[in-house]
């Protein structure tokens, strides 16, 4: 019974983890059809921003929930203005340029922070379920993920900004028809997506030692979660996060974490092949 609870909690955590690291990429991909391969590095930057400000004395929660998104949002704005905005509509070129950006960011961070791991302790203590020691902080991550997605859904459905965002998903013409400049909307969207990635990085910072290269782990999982999810930002990402998280953890429990990860990647290939429009392209059409 205890074991079941542990498994379920681990699955829930994995889903939340995937949902969190995918949020920024989902917003940018869902609204602008931009595949940002530097997304993992944005998450990494959020982590570094959190750790640096925490070490400078700022409260850890402020560092991860406020500083990280702001810093990475600013970086995102810069990137959009200097690189991405020239490549709208050119998906392959965008992938290439953002791949270059990811290398650049890794190089920069290595230059500034060096190649040794930095870390910060988790602010929430662990707890017990029967014989098992659980990380308390994981529950905080789940809570943040839930709040984030509920928030996004509410904004998309019920606010004017959300309406414009959903219009943007249909194309620049719709945005113009709504009376707004598509270029400005795209700029804001990319910035917002970057901020979300920064938030994810900040929240995840206390979990492991941070290296400039951690982005690589994040991008792969976020990537497949978002692309197989399809255009629906909330519905798509959550359904694939749910699917992958479950498969990953179940297989991991049955054998090893590596096999679990490989199972997830294989599943991704199968889904991509069978549903080129993503899950929301096939099943939940017209969902947000």
């Amino acid at each position, binding site marked *: 019974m205890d074991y079941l609870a542990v498994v379920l909690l681990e699955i829930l955590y994995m889903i939340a983890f995937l949902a969190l690291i995918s949020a920024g990429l989902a917003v940018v991909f869902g609204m602008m059809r931009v595949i940002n391969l530097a997304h993992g590095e944005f998450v990494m930057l959020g982590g570094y921003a959190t750790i640096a400000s925490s070490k400078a004395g700022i409260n850890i929660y402020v560092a991860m929930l406020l500083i990280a998104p702001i810093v990475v949002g600013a970086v995102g704005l810069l990137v959009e203005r200097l690189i991405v905005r020239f490549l709208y509509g050119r998906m*392959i070129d965008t992938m*290439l340029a953002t791949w270059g950006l990811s*290398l*650049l960011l*890794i*190089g920069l961070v290595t230059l500034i922070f060096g190649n040794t791991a930095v870390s910060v302790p988790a602010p929430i203590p662990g707890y017990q379920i029967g014989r098992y020691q659980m990380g308390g902080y994981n529950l905080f991550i789940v809570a943040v993920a839930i709040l984030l997605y509920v928030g996004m859904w509410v904004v998309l459905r019920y606010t004017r900004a959300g309406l414009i965002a959903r219009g943007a998903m249909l194309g620049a013409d719709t945005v113009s028809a709504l009376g707004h400049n598509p270029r400005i909307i795209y700029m804001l969207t990319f910035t917002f997506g970057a901020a979300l990635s920064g938030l994810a990085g900040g929240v995840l910072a206390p979990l492991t030692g941070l290296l400039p290269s951690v982005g690589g782990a994040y991008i792969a999982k976020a990537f497949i979660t978002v692309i197989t999810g399809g255009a629906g930002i909330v519905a798509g990402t959550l359904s694939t996060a749910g699917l992958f998280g479950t498969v990953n953890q179940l297989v991991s429990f049955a054998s090893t974490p590596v096999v679990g990860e*490989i199972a997830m990647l294989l599943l991704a290939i199968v889904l991509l092949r069978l549903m080129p429009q993503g899950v929301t392209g096939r099943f939940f059409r017209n969902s947000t």
Partner: protein
Amino acid sequence: MTGSGFGVGRIRWNWFVAFALVLLLLPLLSEVNTPTLLAIWALFALSLGLMWGYAGILSFGHAAYFGLGAYTYAIASFNIGESTAPLLLAILIPMIFAAIIGAMMFYGRVSDVYVGVITLVVTLILNRFMNATAGDAYRIGNARLGGFNGIPAFPILNVPGDPNEQIYGTPYYYVVIACLLGSYLLARVILSSAFGRALIGIRENELRMELLGYNVQGLKTAIFAICGGLAGLSGALFANWAEIVTPSVFSLGQSAEVIIWVIVGGVGTLVGPMIGAVLLGTLKIVLGMQTSIDNSLILGAILILVVLLIPRGFAPAFVAWRRRLAQLQAYRRHARGTTRRRLHVKEAEQ
């Protein structure tokens, strides 16, 4: 319409021979260790450039076949002892793997972007898998896969039939150069053939090629497999050069690097990718010798700049410029009212 046309110039034999001579005489002027590596990278770049520039297929995980070639060679040579079969297997296994992945993608009519994504994920899977194969349990025959640490000290290339006569140093350099030049000529032959012309047509307009009755999916799978085989060859040659194979051969970094080499050198020519590999490879080696400027930083900046400023790289811009110049000259001559006889002679030459 064989020979020139379709954007593939006629092979200039004088340049080719001159270049081959330079390569052959190089050992007299310098050490061969670095040139060997650069030639291997050039071959790897050629394998991607052929597919990308002429068939329009961009793989974001071409390192998968490079790595498979390297690992296949290492594992096979441990088990077989003589190197000829392992080398052939190192071409065949990646080719078969590429045929399977390619068929799955192309017969599934997956879009360009998804080809990029799927190829990326395939490399990730191989990378993760190989990284986790530490321990005695993971072995194929005599070869322990070695996980993160890889497979060291496998038998290197030997003279076919004589396992004791190992090939390294300058003789090995010649083997690599032979493979490079041979592959280049193979690529040329492909491009001049109906198969190659069809690939170029597919790059230009897949739908139209289908409507003309071409089995587009089969053709794309075929070139994907061939280029996978060539990448495998370069991987096996790399294994022999490095005398160790580690999971880094499957890394995203390796896939990114080869794309950068091709795009900088020029998508749309055969020579461009090879030049890109040599130039950027040299840069990488030079940068690797110091620690102040990080290699990732430079490569990343280069990729961004190239995509923004010269999306198809230097070489095609040059080729297009030359074509335009030739057309302009032809018009000028026509306008000047050249005699009919001279015009006919000009047309016969083409």
